[in-house]
């Protein structure tokens, strides 16, 4: 008995590496601490009622935000470990297997479990408020999406201590990701972590499309809708068209591994290059899925802090929607070296260059919005201003990569690494941080401290250039991605060392931001007006933090930037006070089913990962039962009485 238990543990848990033993101990201690605190302060009921069962988009947004910051930490630690390993030639900080696992999880986590949830967090925190809506179109489904993401992410991260991390690159190319070369559950963790959270992403895409099309306040025509909501619409359009391809692709990969199918195998007529085509048909739109909402954030921030109407609104709308279409016609530029015909390569090279045009249009729009504006350099604006030069350089190196003959030189070199980090950090991360700083007071009722934020800002920015500029040069010097070490004779050591220093500066910036958040919870400037930045759009017209029903009275929209119009009219005395008439508010009831269903998915996923069919069946039966139960639930909503609305508003300082 004891022997067989020991035998089981030896392959079930990851063994043999002191770093991982340390991680196991710290995970166990954190879990014990969480359970202890929740029990000691009798918070289990609170956790269940207020958070695990919530369908309120603002709370779901906050949970997305917390989860994504944790993932940013993990992905960041992965990055720092890689940079330590590469700081000097012939280091033995990580052995090659461990290095492979780390660059794989770094990439997967940063895109799918950091950028995506941070983006969904911002969608949830902002879109309904900006549209003048009381919730998203399907609040229950929204909770399902969140919990599917959460349990998918947990399944993926579990691979670190149980079973072994995936190590075939962030997109798991076959044949390397097939059973022959990657036996064991690592690749399966990759497949099922992404598959489960991907279903959630797909549902979120549908949810926000319907929210934007159908839940706008009366009078808000599509062409009067705030730019961020437009960018969300563009992003969600890409989600619903791209994510089903991902679902199919990794399902087929799993069939290859689990059932011995021959989709992407080297034998039996399979075709590994088909995987590359399929995965990038999702993968290329995916990078636009995450970056377009960042463009929306910059548009809001620029208009607010330059105190001017956004320049070229119509061209901006055309640009984000144009990108949504063009993004589906560029995927093959990820493998120009595959060896297709010259015509195919020319087509994809040209579409890739074309996509720079709408992006350029946006850059000019932001610049012209700032032109002759009275700019106030608050934190969101700082990140926006830092974004512009960074993204222009990142975009220009992207155009360099799109020149197919030259790409044969750059392909998979550090030049490419530097390029995509520049657009993803300079575009996505800077954008989301700007958004978080901008909307933070609306969610939490206080601003984040400026001084600590400035430390974070400068460390991130200087660190970024120190880290990635040398990598462009290293690419030209012949350094290829995924090398776990290199020799003294190559002359790469000075630039690699500089790059590592830059990575640590960025890490220090993150530490300052964490400090900033914890400091500001107590000492941050309170927002008593609901409009801390002199904002332009509807979300600033309600108190901060927003009450659970968002708007006591649904606003009547007359113009773009409607809240700005109201403020101006009030200032010059032309504002006509409409008689307010409070009505009972229709709200969805909380439900534990999304959480329970996602637990079932997790069980099923764990079964699939270990190829324990019995466990997968139990999990899937659980999923089916929850869906059945939900179908028979009819009592899913309620009305908030007028008195309660009046009382809540009064407690927030608004009298009706």
């Amino acid at each position, binding site marked *: 008995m004891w022997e067989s238990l020991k035998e089981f543990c030896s392959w079930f848990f990851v063994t043999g590496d002191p770093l991982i033993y340390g991680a196991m101990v710290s995970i166990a201690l954190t879990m014990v601490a969480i359970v202890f605190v929740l029990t000691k302060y009798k918070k289990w009921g609170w956790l269940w009622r207020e958070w695990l069962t919530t369908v309120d988009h603002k709370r779901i947004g906050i949970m997305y935000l917390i989860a994504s910051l944790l993932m940013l930490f993990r992905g960041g630690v992965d990055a720092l470990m890689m940079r330590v390993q590469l700081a000097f030639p012939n280091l033995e900080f990580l052995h090659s297997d461990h290095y492979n696992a780390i660059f794989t999880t770094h990439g997967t986590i940063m895109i799918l479990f950091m950028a995506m949830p941070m983006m969904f967090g911002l969608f949830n925190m902002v879109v309904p408020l900006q549209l003048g809506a009381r919730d998203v*179109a*399907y609040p229950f489904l929204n909770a399902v999406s969140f919990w599917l993401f959460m349990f998918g992410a947990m399944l993926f991260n579990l691979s670190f201590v149980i079973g072994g991390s995936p190590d075939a690159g962030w997109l798991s190319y076959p044949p390397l990701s097939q059973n022959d070369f990657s036996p064991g559950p690592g690749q399966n963790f990759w497949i099922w972590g992404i598959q489960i959270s991907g279903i959630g992403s*797909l549902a979120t*895409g*549908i*949810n926000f*499309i*319907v929210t934007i*099309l*159908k839940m706008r306040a009366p009078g808000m025509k599509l062409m009067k809708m705030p730019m961020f909501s437009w960018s969300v619409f563009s992003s969600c359009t890409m989600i*619903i*068209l791209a*994510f*089903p*391809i991902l*679902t*199919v*692709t990794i399902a*087929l990969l799993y*069939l*290859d591994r689990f*059932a*011995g*199918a*021959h*989709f992407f*195998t080297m*034998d*039996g*007529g*399979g*075709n590994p290059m*088909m995987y590359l085509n*399929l995965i990038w048909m999702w993968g290329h739109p995916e990078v636009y899925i995450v970056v377009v909402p960042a463009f929306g954030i910059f548009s809001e921030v620029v208009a607010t802090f330059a105190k001017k109407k956004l320049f070229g609104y119509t061209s901006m709308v055309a640009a984000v929607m144009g990108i949504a279409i063009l993004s589906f016609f560029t995927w093959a530029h990820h493998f120009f070296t595959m060896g297709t015909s010259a015509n195919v390569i020319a087509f994809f090279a040209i579409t890739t260059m074309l996509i720079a045009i709408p992006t350029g249009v946006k850059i000019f729009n932001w610049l012209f919005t700032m032109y002759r504006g009275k700019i106030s350099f608050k934190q969101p604006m700082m990140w926006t201003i830092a974004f512009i030069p960074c993204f222009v350089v990142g975009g220009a190196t992207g155009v360099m990569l799109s020149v197919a003959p030259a790409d044969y030189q750059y392909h998979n070199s550090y030049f490419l690494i530097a390029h995509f980090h520049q657009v993803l950090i300079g575009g996505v991360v800077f954008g989301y941080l700007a958004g978080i700083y901008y909307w933070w007071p609306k969610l939490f009722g206080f601003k984040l401290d400026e001084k600590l934020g400035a430390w974070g800002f400068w460390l991130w920015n200087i660190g970024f250039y120190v880290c990635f500029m040398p990598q462009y040069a290293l690419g030209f010097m012949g350094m290829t991605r995924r090398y776990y070490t290199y020799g003294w004779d190559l002359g790469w050591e000075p630039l690699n060392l500089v790059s590592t220093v830059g990575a640590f500066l960025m890490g220090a910036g993150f530490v300052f931001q964490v400090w900033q958040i914890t400091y500001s919870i107590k000492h941050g400037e309170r927002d008593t007006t609901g409009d801390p930045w002199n904002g332009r759009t509807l979300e600033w017209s309600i108190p901060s933090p927003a009450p659970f029903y968002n708007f006591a009275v649904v606003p009547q929209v007359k113009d773009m930037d409607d809240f700005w119009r109201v403020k101006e009219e009030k200032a010059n005395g032309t504002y006509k006070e409409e008689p307010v008439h409070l*009505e*009972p508010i*229709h709200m969805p009831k909380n439900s534990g089913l999304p959480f329970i269903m996602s637990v079932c998915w997790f069980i099923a996923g764990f079964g699939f990962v270990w190829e324990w069919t019995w466990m997968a069946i139990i999990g899937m039966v659980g999923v*089916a039962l929850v869906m*059945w139960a939900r*179908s*028979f639930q*009819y009592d899913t909503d309620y*009305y908030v009485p007028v008195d309660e609305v009046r009382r809540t508003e009064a407690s927030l300082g608004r009298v009706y």
Partner: protein
Amino acid sequence: MQQVANNHEHGHAHDHEHGHEEHEQLKVLGFWIFLVTDCILFGSLFATYAVLMHSYAGGPTGKELFELPGVIASTFILLTSSFTSGLAILAMNKGKVKELIGWLVVTALLGLSFIGLEISEFTHLVHEGATISTSAFWSAFFTLVGTHGVHVSVGLFWMVAIMLQLRRRGLTPVTRRKVTTLSLYWHFLDVVWIFLFTVVYLMGVM
């Protein structure tokens, strides 16, 4: 005063009903968008099949093993079930719950026999030595046809749930919406099958 209060109450009840119906419409729109995503899902599988449709790797071909009579029978069964689900909608529009449930039962039975035929076809193929691991062609075949079959089975499961709810609650805005989305789903699967029949079976034996 009492009168006014009553009116007020009544007004609200009306509003609530109206609010519900609007919300149900919202769900139908969302379901259409879900069908778009499902279209892409099948599109990806069809594309995969098209790439691998001649990769037999020395194994049996579709031409050798497909038995058209069975497939034609199941095609007619599924097309008929699409027709009967349309009749169910007509019954719903006339407000006849019993007739509606009756047509749904017929639709479900037809769907069930479609699944039965598919299972026997798969068993036959496996006996002939064509499994998912035989060659890339058979991998693509079983995955594409099987995914459609799983969709139909999920539809049957869902149909049973809705029949029970119709019996318990009759026709309300909510049950109406559920029948509407179910029949959208069913017709969609029928359209997919027409493509599947053409691309996989007809082009396979030609």
